[in-house]
């Protein structure tokens, strides 16, 4: 069946560096999401994105975070600069329509040292 792919599965970077997490959503999907899960804690909504724009973001979506999907390619989450508290697993999800249950990727584990 259709899948949401996340690349890479694990990323290790030094604090203060920039990181870009890539998500390859299902090809005909129009709504995109990022969620964050700190180890051992609850999954939390970060942001959703439709028609080239951020629709809603949570308080976890700091000013250092940005999302884009240039020309229908990867849906990306960029963090610049990174902080220690950004260490977490980031999950991407996509759906065809807004009211539909989204399909989740397997996550990218980000370790900020």
């Amino acid at each position, binding site marked *: 069946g259709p899948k949401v792919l996340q690349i890479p599965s694990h990323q290790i970077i030094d604090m203060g560096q920039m990181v870009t997490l890539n998500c390859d959503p299902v090809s005909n999907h129009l*709504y995109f*999401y990022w*969620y964050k*899960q700190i180890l051992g*804690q*609850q*999954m*939390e*909504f970060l942001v*959703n994105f*439709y028609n080239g724009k951020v*629709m*809603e973001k949570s308080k976890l979506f700091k000013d250092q975070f940005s999302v884009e999907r240039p020309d229908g390619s990867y849906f990306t989450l960029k963090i610049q600069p990174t902080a220690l508290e950004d260490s977490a*697993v980031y*999950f991407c999800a996509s*759906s065809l*329509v*807004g*009211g*539909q*249950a*989204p*399909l*989740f*990727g*397997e*996550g990218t*584990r980000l370790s900020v040292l």
Partner: protein
Amino acid sequence: GQQVQQSPSSLVLQEGENAELQCNFSSTATQLQWFYQSPGGSLVSLLSNPSGTKHTGRLTSTTVTKERRSSLHISSSQTTDSGTYLCAISSGGSNYKLTFGKGTLLTVTP
């Protein structure tokens, strides 16, 4: 904001036993999903069940919307069912923002 409470927080079963997981939520849910999160962290959607009863394989979910609760029944548990089961709700709108519970950690022993 919305709250999702799951119980029990952990559950240990012997292979072959049945599991009953509960999810209670604080506001009306237009969408409700059950997920399985493996020990490695990857997430799989099990069922989308905003109301009524749904079955898939050994899983049965029953959601009573008016009472703001849902259950997930796993029959004849297997060791491979071990992992964390997450309940998540959305209160509607086109943004479909999911609020997750903390999960139930299920351990199935041989």
